[in-house]
């Protein structure tokens, strides 16, 4: 199993980290923790 990446915050920064990390290393296990109900929103 790949390494475990945990991201805190699902805004523009957190969302981009998750997408690119997965693209580069599909073996990564990724969880995004978001305080609110919405993710990856545009300002």
């Amino acid at each position, binding site marked *: 199993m790949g390494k475990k990446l945990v991201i805190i*915050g699902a805004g523009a920064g957190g*969302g*981009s*980290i998750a997408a690119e*990390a997965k*693209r580069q290393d599909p073996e990564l296990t990724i969880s995004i923790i978001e305080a*609110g109900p919405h*993710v990856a929103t545009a300002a």
Partner: protein
Amino acid sequence: MPYYIGDVIKDANKLTARTPEKFREGGIEVMQNNRVERVDTDAQEVLLEDGAKIPYDILALGTGTTAMRAGIPGEDMDGVFVLKHLGDALNIKRYLKDNKCQKAIVVGAGFIGMEVCEAFATLGMETSVVHRGQYPANRWDPELSGFILEEIRKNQVTFHTNMQIIAIEKGPQHPLRLHTNQGPLDGDLILLALGVKPDVALAKGMGLAIGQSGAVAVNYSQQTSIPNIYAAGDCCEAYHRVSRRWVNIPLGDIANKQGRVAGSVIGGKPMIFPGIVGAQSFRIFHLEAAATGINEKEALGVGYCPVSDITWGNATAASMPGPKKLGLKLIADRVTGRLLGAQAVGEKGAVGRINTLSAALWTGMRLDEIGYLDLAYAPPFSGSWDIIHIAAQKLLRKM
């Protein structure tokens, strides 16, 4: 989000770049409505408020910013909003729908305040802006922000200057009354647009280094002071290529790029975030406002010898009909002749000029080079000497 509130963007779903379902399809778990209590960096665990523990090998922070509050009585009342998250935009929209809102008050005259006052006025509400200073958008010089102020007033928005807010309470005719140092203002809705600050509470708890800007310190690979912890976006700093300092400029385009760099590094492909030049823009009714680089005060603070000049001209050939008034301020370094910054406000073409000048800042171009840059000329888009050429040559003569 201001354009969603103003009904320009009709569908809130269009504001979401990637849905939780889309993330999950891509094999990424999304845990919404989960607050992090703290992070144990020794055990490499994230502790949630509900008691759950999530172990990690690599951690990344995208905690963003928090909206500044006014710290006055009544700011938590119904009808008083900030605009930070999509949830705020949805709440404002719902409140507007459920209540017959006729009068809106925007507190703050930064770019969010400006965009929202346009949205409220466009919806037909009697809108006023409450500002503690004299001119809106303080990144721009008074001569340029004066043009913005004229535009605001031309569109029937009342702009109150030098006004301090004191308290909010129930109003006699409208639901809310805002007390100020210049008397009360009544309204159906109050938006507090007082700015944001980086959300570094968790980072501080973890003992991560915080930079002078107050945001999380990172290197060019987006690594924090603990190597297996990364940060990207509004919560962290970015290297400013003109001031050569680490700064915090909370804008979504920077967040996207930093996030992609961090993700690439984490995924095993090394990458460097090349920094920023501080490019920024907003629209207010029929005006474009844009700026890039640094101003004279910032330039002096980092050891430059700034000289500047404002040029008023046209976005198109002077002979072309239609709105075209454009003001461009350039700031340059007397010692090296290099451009340090630019500000533009115009009925047209301000953002395009600032984008061009951002590229010039990026490569460290001098005014003499900018004065003869090959730009795309045609009468609908510029004079045969573009305002960029004119301004650069004019400032060069002052050096």
